[in-house]
């Protein structure tokens, strides 16, 4: 068999495979995306169960070497969209052991952690860093107010949590995300307060406007001759 035939056959095998993969990708990619969206919404509700509606706001520019803020969602209860229930921040730390560690933090309006869950991407070592997903580790963050330090062994007080044994790198990455989340909420809470104010103002404006229209209509009616109820003599 000539070298050309060999190369050609190999090329055919590779191309056919590539075509099949492109097809499989077209089919599975939308499903993966839909799943991701669904999981995201479910996670939002998990970390901030009191909130009924979520509104995404611009994270702005948050400066930190290792943590990126992916998204901030503000949680409201009820249709009025003015009853603030808290914030949900997704943050990714590039300092995980196996790559990025993405964490979702629910923060209540007093800037204390409501709940932390691990989201994806997360590829820490099974049996070691992967234990960061367990409530035993994550529940340590509940109620803490930021600037949390990771210690090995017993954690004392409100500013410390205990690292997972032999998974300090993962523990630190998660903590960095939580700390950054609280920082960014404090920084942007003026934005959220402003946003909430705006919604309130717009609502009030609408009420004012309809009141004004009503008044104007009544005014106009006053200028019109009052319909006199004549004696109806039948002939007009």
């Amino acid at each position, binding site marked *: 068999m000539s070298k050309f035939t060999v190369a050609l056959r190999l090329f055919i095998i*590779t191309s056919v*495979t*590539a075509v099949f*993969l*492109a097809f499989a*990708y077209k089919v599975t990619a939308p499903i993966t995306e839909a799943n991701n969206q669904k999981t995201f919404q479910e996670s939002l509700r998990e970390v901030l169960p009191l909130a009924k509606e979520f509104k995404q706001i611009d994270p702005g520019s948050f400066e930190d070497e290792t943590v990126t803020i992916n998204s901030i969602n503000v949680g409201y209860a009820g249709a009025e969209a003015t009853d603030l229930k808290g914030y949900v921040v997704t943050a990714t730390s*590039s300092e995980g*052991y*196996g*790559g*990025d560690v993405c964490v979702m933090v629910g923060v209540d309006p007093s800037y204390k952690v409501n709940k932390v869950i691990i989201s994806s*991407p997360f*590829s820490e*070592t099974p049996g070691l860093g992967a234990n960061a997903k367990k409530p035993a580790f994550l529940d340590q963050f509940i109620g803490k107010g930021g600037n949390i330090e990771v210690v*090995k062994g017993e954690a004392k007080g409100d500013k410390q949590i205990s690292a997972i044994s*032999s998974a*300090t*790198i993962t523990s630190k990455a998660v903590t960095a995300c939580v700390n950054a989340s609280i920082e960014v909420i404090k920084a942007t809470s003026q934005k959220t307060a402003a946003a909430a104010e705006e919604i309130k103002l717009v609502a009030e404006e609408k009420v004012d406007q309809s009141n004004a229209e009503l008044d104007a209509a009544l005014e106009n009616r006053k200028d019109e001759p009052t319909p006199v109820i004549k004696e109806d003599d039948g002939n007009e």
Partner: protein
Amino acid sequence: MLSNLLTLSIGAILIENFVLVQFMGICPFLGVSKKVETATGMGLAVVFVMACASGLTYFVNLLLNLLGIAYMRTIAFILVIAVLVQFVEMFLKKSIPALYNSLGIYLPLITTNCAVLGVALLNVTKKLGFIESLVYGATAGLGFTLAIILLAGVRERLESSNIPDFLKGMPITLITAGLLSVAFMGFSGLSF
């Protein structure tokens, strides 16, 4: 940058050793560790392949991302590695035939060494730059070499020991590897 490289290196060699902690490259680790000499040869060949593979796959990954076909990554990477190992084989056959002969069939088997594909994929997951990928690839190979030489050293000693029949061969090798792994756990608190 330099401290970053140092953290990567110490991580790859000690704290999260590719063989004893991350379980990559186990087949050659168990198969080529009978003599320290062959183990060293294999280790060095793997260091070279892993470093080159890291460098090449960095650019392949850039290209794939540019063309928007990231899902072809696995195929592209393994093909690059297979071709790389072919070239290394041809090169060794001509230049260092002694090494080529002593490695025998284990040389082409470097293609299926999980550590080579593993480090290429890890470079992508960890979003490492070009120099960082090269360093990580090379030091991961060094970690593999360290582990395989250690095991070979112990196995050579075990040859002249009185081991019960049912433990001879793989069982005692695995238990030894387990003990090496326990020893390496001692590095897990290390940080920079």
